[in-house]
Structure formats: C-alpha cells, structure tokens
C-alpha cells in the first residue's frame, strides 16, 4: 500500500485540518493523536508530482489557524460568535469548565429548556424560569455547532471532574463506582432535542458536522445506552472521520470479533477506518497473518507513527512473541523518548521477561519525564512488584488510579498485588473495577477466578475463568485454569477436555510464554506443562481409566528432558489414543522454535529444553512406580524408585518402595524356585 505524492499531500492537509478542528473543540487527545500521525507521514517526493500540482500543493496550501466552515450558515454564526467563542475556549483551557459552559449556555437557559421539556410548563420552576417563553416549548438557542459542542463538552467534563472529586479516595467508602455524572442528563436532553429538531426540519438547518454526534455517543456510553451510542458514533465518524476520539469510543463499545466484523461494512471507507480496524482487532487480542499484514501496511504509510508502532508491539505481545514485542517497544522508545503513552504495556512485557535493569531504567525515564502520569506510576508499580515490594507497588497503582480512574491496567495490576498481599477482598474489588472499566480485560477476569479459587468458591471461579478463556481462546493458561477448577468440582470429564485444550493452545503459539503477570516464572519454557499432564493423568486415574492415566503420566515424566529422548515413547502413547493425536505435534521437537540452549540432561538446570525434575514429574514417577508395583512390573518399579531417590524427592517413600520391590522380587524368585 503506497500513496502517491498527491495523496500524501491531501492526507497531510486533512490531518492538519483535523488537528485544528479538534483543538478548536478542546479535544486535546484527539488533536494530539492526529498531530502525531501527521508527523509520521513522510514528506512526498516532489519529483513524483506534476509541476503544476506541486506548485498548487505547496503554494495554494496555507495552514488554517481557524478552520473555515464550508457551510455558509454555520460560518456566519461562527463569525458572529467569534469573540464569545474565544472567551469560552480560554476558560476551557484554564480548566474553568462551568464558566466555559455558561458562556453559551447559561444555567438559567439550560434549566429552562429542560424543565419545559421534562415536565409540563405549569410546574412552578418552569414557569418562573420560562415565563416569557412560549408555553409549549422554549426554542433552542441558535448557536454554531462548534460553540455548542464546546459548551456541552465543557459541561460533561465538569461533571466528570465533580464525579471524581466526590468519589474521594481510591477504594475508599465513597468510591463504589455508583456516583454518576450529574451533568449527563442535562447534556443528553439537550442533544436529544437538538437532534430531534434536525430530523424534523432538516431542510432549513445546516447539516451536522459530526462532533455533536460524537458527544452524544459519548454521553450515551456513559449512560450505558450502548446500541444507540454505537449509532451516533458511526454517524459521527461518517461525518468527520478524523476525530480519533470517536473511533476510540467505538473500539471500546465493540465486545468481540463478531461485532467488529459486523460493523466493518457500515464504516466509511478511508484510512481512518483501516487504522480503527487494526487497532480494535489488536485490542480484542486478535492475531494472525492478516492483521500483521495490515499493521505492516499502515506502517509503510506512517513509518514513524508511534501509534502504529505501538499497535504492532501489542500485536506481538498478544501473540506471546514477547521478545519481538520488547524490541518493538524499545525502538519506539528510541524514536520518541519523551512519549509516555502505552509505556505501561512495555513495562508489562519487561516484567514478564524479568528484565529488571531495563524496567528500572524505564521507570527512571518515566519518572524523570513526568512522575504524575498514570503510565509512569504503573511502570514504577510494576518495577516494585518485580522486586516483590508489593506494598509499594500498590501505593503506585493507587496513585495511578487517583490520577486517572479509568486506568485499566492499574486496576488489574493492583488486583494482582492484593492477591500477593493476601488481601482477597481488595483484590476482588480491584478486578471488578477493572472489568467494569473494560469488559475485555481477560487478566482481570482470570484474576477474579484465581481469587475465588483461593477462597475455594469454585463455581464462581469457573465462571470467571470461562470468561477469560472466552476472551483468549488460544491461551493455555486460561484453559488450564478452567480445567483445574472443574477438577476441583469433581467434573473430571469436562476437566480433561479443558486441559487438553490447554495443551493444544500451548502448542498453538510459537512461544509458550505466559502473558499473565503474576504467574510464577517456573515452567514457562515447558513444551508441555507437566503439571497439566499430571492433572489429566490423575483425573483419568480417578475415572478408573488406568491406561490413559499411565500414558499421560509417562508423558509427564518425559517432559523432564524435553521429551526429545522419550519422544518415541510419547508418540507410542499417543498413537495408542488416536483421538489426541495433536498432542504429538505439540510435543515434537520441531515446534520448539525458541528453545534456548542445548540438551542439558536429566536433572540439569531445568531452564533448558527439559523442565528437569519438578514436583509434578516426581509425582508422576511415583505414581508410575506404584502402578508398576500393582502390575507386578518390579524391574520398572525398581528403576523408577531408584530415580526418585537420586532426585532426592520423597526419598523416604521411594526407599520404602525399593525395599518392598526387593522383597517382592525375592519372593518372586523364591516362588519361581
């Protein structure tokens, strides 16, 4: 995908316009986003242009300090209101939101409007306020859309601010998530009427510019009226596609791939929807060649765009390619050393990779840039968490949340820290808040499940694990959790299914690194998790399917040396169970793409190909030894028990076993004689 020079010029112009329009309406983040994107568009190669076009492109273009409105009616209104608009804008910039709103929409006017609408005109309040107005309905003030947007937006923001202030301390007595933005009602009623007027008599009123739709959509999202919000937001992006805020709201509304695919056809066909698609897919934890290709296409257009680079890094992260993701983020950091956005994801990656020095450096960098940004606090919190200083970590996550209550990752990570601190109630609350902020956060769901599992409330846990697994169907960790939960509930059949799914999922990814933060670092590099295998085996054992159990136990033991030597054994096992032939593929050495180091032998360092001796494999070996005893295969039993003694795990029991084996063998010898 490559744009011609002319197209590039047009794109640049559109983006420049977008920056001006967004900042005129005080949509700072959207403006920033557009400006960043604008900066990453490479300069067009002038030789590609026609001479004439070049001259036109370069000279005919001038930067609009104030965007001109093509609509004559609106333009006239805007010109008339210019001084008032400038006043309101400066109030907004000084964070005097109520004052800004009252420049165009004084409180008396608003309440008058709304009371006539909400109740009938005979109520004393409405009468007092709107006595001069026509009894049926007071007309909406005739304002340009720009000014109207600014006023209403200020109203919403002021409400948000008040809401935050009333919630007081994070997780304090007031902070229950029940406090509502009291200005939403006013704004939504106003907008309702405004849009109603448009619809009724669209003939003489100028067409909408898209921003008010965006605002209405946003308000409706806050009121949890999501379907209507979706409509308005779609309208908005059709009318003005360059407002990234609207796209982001859309992203947040979409709960799954199906919905995304459903919505795609109705989107406007332009570069923004392309970016939107990629971003949403990444946020929905999608992966695959197509998505990667489309991100790469975007990168060709905007080679240095921090946003697209972040998308690519997140894509790698979600597909568990942590090293590449780390590289991507590192490059991003080099390109934009002062940019703090999304560095919290980077810190997650560094956390999982256990790169302490680099995480420390990142935290240092963030804190020297701005220590009062939620991202910085999250990075620092992650660093402290890695140092096992959980109290300090909690402190920083709380700080992040104080700065921005909608900071999703901070809620989740704080939940993790509370789990570490054994404060399950706080942990559950944190996770719950995280889920409330964003329903797609599988880590929070998983954390919830985990916490309930700790509290031994398995059916709750199962529900949450299933949610998590639904969000990340290709993450073995989720299925394993579901499986073990089922096992605890005594549903062995379902448990086995879930665990097998986990094995399958693990083999699906190139790397088996877990992305779940609080999981221990052990067993990350396993080809097949011996724990899972042991679990499956023991469930089979409980179900009385001894052969299956034995096969899985052997597979589990085989994991000690990476399954390479015992591969034949394992495949033999698996071929005996044709239904699970995929296990073999998962286990074959060829799939261990990122295996590091060579074969280190049994009981070696453990981080090599094999897992080395773990508790799970020892248990499996013990089971096998006993099984061999039962089946009177004393030689095998003897060998396994001796191995157990060598490994130094459960020595006493193993020795007892050896003694028993010896005596049985002697007995057998005697009887033979």
């Amino acid at each position, binding site marked *: 995908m490559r744009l011609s020079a002319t197209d590039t010029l047009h794109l640049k112009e559109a983006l420049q316009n977008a920056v001006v329009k967004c900042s005129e309406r005080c949509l700072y983040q959207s403006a920033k986003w557009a400006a960043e994107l604008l900066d990453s568009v490479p300069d067009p190669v002038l030789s590609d242009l026609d001479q004439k076009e070049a001259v036109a492109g370069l000279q005919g273009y001038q930067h609009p300090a104030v965007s001109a409105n093509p609509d004559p009616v609106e333009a006239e209104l805007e010109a008339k209101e210019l001084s008032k608009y400038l006043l309101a804008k400066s109030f907004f910039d000084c964070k005097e939101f109520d004052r800004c709103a009252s420049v165009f929409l004084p409180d008396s006017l608003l309440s008058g409007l709304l009371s006539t609408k909400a109740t009938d005109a005979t109520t004393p309040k409405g009468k007092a306020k709107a006595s001069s107005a026509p009894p049926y309905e007071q007309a909406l003030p005739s304002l340009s859309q720009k000014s109207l947007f600014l006023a209403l937006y200020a109203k919403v923001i002021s409400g948000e601010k008040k809401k935050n202030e009333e919630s007081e301390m994070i997780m304090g007595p007031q902070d229950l998530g029940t406090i509502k933005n009291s200005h939403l009602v006013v704004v939504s009623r106003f907008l309702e009427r405004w849009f109603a007027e448009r619809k009724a008599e669209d003939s003489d009123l100028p067409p909408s510019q898209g921003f008010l739709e965006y605002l209405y959509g946003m308000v409706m999202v806050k009121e949890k009226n999501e379907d209507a919000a979706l409509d308005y937001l779609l309208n908005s992006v059709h009318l003005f596609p360059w407002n990234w805020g609207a796209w982001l709201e859309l992203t947040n509304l979409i709960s799954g791939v199906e919905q995304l695919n459903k919505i795609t056809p109705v989107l406007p066909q332009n570069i923004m929807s392309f970016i939107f698609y990629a971003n949403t897919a990444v946020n929905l934890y999608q992966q695959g060649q197509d998505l990667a290709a489309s991100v790469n296409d975007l990168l060709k257009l905007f080679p240095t765009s921090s946003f697209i680079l972040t998308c690519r890094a997140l894509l790698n992260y979600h597909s568990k390619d942590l090293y590449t993701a780390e590289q991507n983020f*590192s490059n991003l950091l080099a390109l934009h050393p002062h940019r703090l956005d999304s560095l919290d994801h980077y810190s997650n990656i560094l956390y999982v990779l256990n790169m302490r020095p680099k995480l*420390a*450096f990142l*935290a240092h*960098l963030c804190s*020297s840039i701005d220590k009062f940004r939620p991202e910085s606090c999250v990075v620092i919190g992650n660093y402290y968490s890695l140092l096992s200083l959980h109290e300090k970590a909690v402190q*920083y996550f709380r700080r992040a949340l104080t700065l921005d209550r909608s900071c999703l990752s901070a809620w989740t990570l704080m939940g993790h820290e509370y789990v570490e601190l054994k404060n399950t109630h706080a942990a559950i609350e944190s996770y719950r808040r995280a889920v409330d902020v964003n329903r797609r956060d599988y880590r929070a769901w998983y954390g919830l499940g985990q916490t309930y599992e700790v509290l031994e409330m398995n059916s709750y846990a199962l529900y949450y694990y299933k949610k998590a697994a639904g969000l990340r169907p290709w993450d073995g960790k989720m299925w394993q959790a579901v499986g073990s939960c089922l096992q605890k509930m005594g549903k062995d059949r379902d448990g086995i299914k879930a665990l097998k799914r986990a094995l399958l999922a693990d083999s699906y990814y190139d790397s088996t690194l877990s992305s779940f933060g609080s999981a221990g670092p052990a067993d990350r590099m396993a080809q097949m998790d011996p724990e899972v295998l042991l679990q499956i085996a023991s469930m089979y054992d409980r179900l009385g399917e001894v052969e299956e159990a034995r096969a899985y136990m052997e597979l589990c033991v085989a994991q000690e040396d990476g399954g390479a030597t015992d591969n034949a054994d394992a495949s033999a096992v698996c071929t005996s169970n044709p239904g699970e032939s995929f296990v073999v593929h998962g286990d074959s050495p060829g799939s261990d793409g990122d295996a590091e180091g060579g074969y280190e032998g049994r009981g070696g360092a453990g981080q090599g190909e094999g897992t080395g001796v773990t508790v799970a494999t020892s248990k499996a070996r013990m089971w096998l030894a006993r099984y061999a005893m039962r089946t009177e295969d004393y030689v095998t039993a003897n060998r396994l028990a001796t191995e157990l003694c060598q490994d130094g795990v459960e020595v006493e029991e193993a020795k007892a076993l050896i003694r028993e084996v010896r005596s049985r063998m002697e007995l057998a010898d005697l009887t033979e004689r």
Partner: protein
Amino acid sequence: MARYLTPAKIGLLALIELYVEETVPNDAIIPVLSFLTSHILDSDLQSTMTTTPGAANRWQRAERSIGLVVSIKDFEDLLLPFPAVDRLPGRRLWDRFLEKLWGIDSLDALQTFFSRQPRVLTRTREELRQMTELGEELPSGILLARNSPLGAFVRKAVLEFTRLQFHHSAELWKAFVKYRQPTVSYWRRRNPQCGRLSFDSVLMESQHEWGSFTDGIAVTAYGGLLMDEEDGALPVSTDDIESLLEFQIDQIQKYGARVPAEIKAKFHAMLRDSHVVPSLSHYLNFSDAWRSGDYPSAFDYLHRYFDYTMQNRDRLFYHYALMNLAIVQSDFGCHKEAMATMLETISTARENKDNTCLNFCLNWFYHFGRAHPDLVQDLEANSMIGSGKEALAFLRAKAKETGMLVLRSSALLSEAKLNMANGESIAGAMEHLVRSSHIIVERNMKSLIGSQLSVTTSLWDRLGISYLSTMTSEVFLRVHAPSACFDDELKMVCRLAGTFAGKGKYNEAFAKLEDGIDKNLLRAAKPNQYWHLYRGLVKLRRDLHHNDLDTAETLLAQLLQIGSEELDPDVVFIIDSLHIEALIRRKDFDAAYEKIERLIAKFRDDHRDLSLRIRLLLAKAHLFDCMGRPERGFSITMRAASLAWRARLLTLLWQAVGALANILNAMGEFTAAVQLVEAVLPRSMESENAFNTGILYSILADARMGQAGKAAKARQAMTTTGETTGAAASLMSNKKIDLFTKAHEALECAFNHFSAAEDLEKQCETLAKRATLMKVLGDHARAEEYAARYMALKRQSSSGEHSSVWSTDTGTP
C-alpha cells in the same frame, strides 16, 4: 533534598562491604575503620589519636564531612596508598573500591546493592533457624553486630532506602552517577572496555539497538546531568545538613567562636539548591549574627527560628524563646528590656513548671543582678528571690534536687565569689571552690573548668600569691583551653597579660595578647571588643608609667566613651582608677578628688566588692599624699588596712601599710615606719607588682633618711649642748652613714623596681634622691652621675622615647 541517603553514604557502604569481605590489607584496617567511624559517628577518633585537639582543627570535622559529601576525592586519598590484598599485582585498594562502585551500573543494581546489604550483618536467631531449616550454609567471616556502629549504620541506610519514593531513589541514582563520574578516567585506564555510556548498563547494552537515538534517551532520563551543568545541586541529605548545623551550633555555643568564613561559604553552597531549609539553620544564622554583633539581624533570625519551630513544638517552648531573647538583649546592652523579658521568662517557666529553664533563668538573673545592681534594686525589695545570698542558696538546693550539676557547680562558684567580694572567710570560699571542683572533676564537665579556675586565680590574687594564680592560668591555657569556652580562654589570657604588665613586661603582655589567641575566634564581636579593651588598658598603663600623659588621655577618652552598660563592672573600675591616676599625674587634684568621692559613695550604696572599695580608699590616701598632706589620709588608710586585713586582701593590705608608713614618715615616726615597711616588703615582693614594691622601697628609703636626719638632729642637739666628744660624734656619724647606706640601698631597689615598671616619674624621683644622698655623703662624682642620668631621663620623658629607657637602664647596678 534527600532525607538521609547520599552518594557519599553509598560510598561508605561500599567501603564497609570491602572491609567485611576482608579485602582490606592489615595496615589499612585502622585508617579505613577510623575513616568510617569518623563519618558515621559524631566522635572523632582520628583527630584525638593523631593530632592534639586545638582551636585550629576544631572545624576540621565540619570541613571533612562537607568534603566527603561534595566529592569522591576523600575516598581516593584514603584508599590509593594501600595495595589490594589479592589477585593482580599493582592493584590498589582504590581499584577494588571503584570496582564496587562501578559494579552498581544501573538503577536496578542500586536496588540490588541495597537489598544485599543486610548480608554484612550477623543474622538474628530467627534467621539462623530458618537458614538451618533450609539447609543453607551459615555465614562466616567478618560480620557486623546489629547494634555496632557500623551495623547500625548499615541497617539505617537500608531502612532509609526502603522508605524512599521511587523518584527519590531515581534522584539518588542520578546523584550517585554524578558523584562517581570524576573517577571515570582512572577507571577507564584500568578497564579499556568502559565506554562513554558505561555509567548505565542499560544504555550501554541498548546502544546497538537504539543506535543514534541512545543519546536522546539518555538525556531524557538523566536530564541536565549529562550536560555538565556546573551549578547542579550538591548531593546532600537533610541528615547531613542537620548534623552539620548541630555541629556548628554546638561549636558556637560551646566555644563562643564564629564559623570560619571558608566553611560558611561551603555550607552555603550546599544549602543553595535545597528547597528545604531546616529551621535550625535560622538558629545558626542567629548565633552567627549574635556573635558578630549584628543586633537587628540577630533579632530577626531569632524570631524567624521560633516562628518556624512553633509548628512542631507547642507553646511550651515559648519561654525558651524569651530566654534567648533576654540573653541577646543583655548582650547588646539593652539591659532594661532584657530584665523585663527575663522576668517574663521566669514567670512563664514557673507556670509551665519547667524547672530546668527556671533554674537557668534564676542563675542568669542572679549574675545579671550582680552586674547591674542599679537595675534590680527596686526589684530586690519585694521579689521572691530575695537578696543575693539567699537566691544562691535556693539555687544550690534546687540544683541538687533536680540533679542539674552544671547549675549546682556554678552556684557554688558564685557563692565563693560572693564570699570573697563580701570579704568573708577565705576558708568558706575555699570550701565552695573545692566542692564545685569535686563535681566538675567527677562528672568531667570540661566546660566549667574555665570559670572554676578563674575563680581560683582571683582567690590567689586576692591572697597575694601571684605565682600560684599565674600558674593556674597557665595550666588552664595549656591543658583545658581547647575544650573550654573561648570567653574563658580570652579572660585568662588577658589576666596573664595584666600580670605581665604589672611586672612591667609590657612587650610580653602584648605578645601574649597577640599570639596567644586564634584570630578566627576573635571574629566574634564581644571577645573582639574585650580584647581591644584589654590591649588599650595595658597600653594606657604603660603610657601612664611613661608619663606620656597626652597619649594616655587620648586613650582614656576612647575608653571612657565605651558605655559602662556594655562592659564588665570590673573593667569599668580599672578604667576609672586609671583615669584617677591620670588626673593625679596631671595634678588635677580637684577632679580626681571629686571622682573618687563619687565612686566611693556609689560603691558603698551598691554593696560592691570590698576590694574595689579598699582600692578607692587607698587612691584617696594617695591623693592626699600627692597634695602634700598625707596625714589627712590617716584615718582612711587605717580603715583600708583594717578592711583589707579582715578580708585577707593581702596585696591591698601591703599597699595600705605602705601608705600608713608614708603617713608615719610625714609625722616623723620613722622607726615605726621602717618597722612596718620592713615587715611588709618581702610579702609584697611575692605579689610581683613592681610598682607597689618600688613605692614601698622608696618609703623605706624615706624612713631611713628620716632616721638619719633624726640622728643628725640628735647630734646637732648634742653639739649645741656642747658635748662634743669625738667618739660619740664619730659613732653618730657612723650610724648616720650606715643609715644613709641603707637608705641608698633601698633607693637602688626602688629604682630597679620602678625601672622594671618603666615608671619615669618615680625613676626620676629616686635618682634625684640618690643624687642628693650622694651629695650629702660627699660623693660628688656619683652625685654628678646620678644627676646626669636624671637629666637624660627627663629629656627622654619629654621627647617621649620610652623604648630606649629601660634598655639602657638594665645594665645599671
């Protein structure tokens, strides 16, 4: 500004680690340990071991702790001379130390460094149990006990690090990088692989990944640190600043010295960039302004200090503020205000039941009352404190009750002084002195030695045993001066100078005043004033003796201008008496008489020290003598003598006896006069006052002459009666010649003493007498010689060449 941790402290931790790892060679162990302790503890082992403590290196500690904070150079100086214990030859201990410091190559490594610090400590029992359970190897080698100074330091450092907020630890890391940077060239020489960005391993490693962007990131993370900004903040912690402040205030309060300008400048450089200025620094400024005599700023700073400290202490400390205020006021001569303030302090302290403060205030108030009797006069009548003596007894009892030893000993000393001033039993005074000395010695209260010894010297002085008092002063200056308050030292030096001047050794006196004192200490306003005053007094005395009355009057005019408010009453008296002497020498007897009368009346009303009153009486008798009517002073002299005898003020007694003999001479009772003077002379010589002894001798000579004259009269009477027997005549003449010779001897002694005191007038007088005597004896040649010398002296005195006088005279027999 950091609370506690600084890069220098990281350096100390690294050094402790080196020591614990036994990499410090044997001969370096003591220097390293004393370096550590001198920076970790307040006490200073190094200086007490190597150098004798003195005023000069009093500030060394401050300088060293500033030096350590500011640069890594101190470590280098310490460690470079020693070889490392192991491995490569030619490596120094400094290399090992740098290895440790450069081993901390990232913020994370700093975290690790701190988290591994507890390894150098002995494990607690619990930890040991856990370790054995886990089958770990028990630690061996040098381990620091948890409560040892080093162990406590390590623990405190680790605790403080855990308490740090993240950005504070990042700040610490940056400061550390900066602190370490000066060693980079040395380190690079030893480790060629060390690159430009080696101060942070993350940057180093990511260099290949980030390429040319690395610098941008480094600058973002480290800010201006990499830009070689010179005026960056020094890495000091509040802890350092506070300990430095406390040290300085301590020095000021203990020794009364001002902070040397150099250290002050360094200290200000440290404080320059910190936003947090500990309120104590206002107190420091206050102390400094106070010492330097800057009255308005002293008040300003004092108020500021108490305003800032009010927030963390409650109103209970109000009276301390008042107390400080009162002391400052009195120091600056606002005695009335000071008294009012102090009375308020006393009542507040009483209200708040703060005994310590109350006792201190009462003690101060007592001394204040002694110094300014006129101010407290109207208070005394109806106050609860009562008269001086009762107040002291009360204080002593209180001090004993509350165990305030300092107060108790100073009350005892005051009582001894009071005893002496009232002319009461010497044994009583001695008893108080001994008791106070017992307390001081037993509790090793070095700060009180000064006042103890000064009371002792004044006791010896009063008893006329001048060599004991000189010795005591010398002992103080040689042994106790470094640990004593500077005021005491200065007073002792001045006293010694006064003794020298009394002996006529003016140059020694000046030398003592010039060289015996640290110039830095004289920067404080009060001591400086005192010092100048004393120089003036010595000079004045010399000028008077030299009969250089014009110069003397110029000086006197200056000295008299200093208001009596700001001075010690004793010094005021000295000035007054010198003034009287000058007046007498000017032959302005009326003025002198008037002045004496006024002073006598005033002192009687104020119940001043007995010795001063006796001195005045003697001065009055002297005045009568000068007017040529010595017999008018008879009753005064008798009173003086009996008072001096009763109070055992022996020096004064000898003077009084001399005056009495003089009167007897005038009345023609020569034999009695001779007996008196001969009895007194040897004791007077003990008191080492040349001028007084000279006067006694000259009185003796007069009496002898009188005796001779009487003998001559008797012969005349005999000759007139006609009994001219040659034998008797010759006997008489023999007796006369004998008396003349004795008179001459006495005159010679008197002359010697006068020339020792460099008193020109008296020298001339004696020479004239000697010349007359010789003439009478018929030895014209010698008479001529004396006359010639007399003329020479007269000329000198008029031309004012004093210096040559005594150098020519020393040769005379």
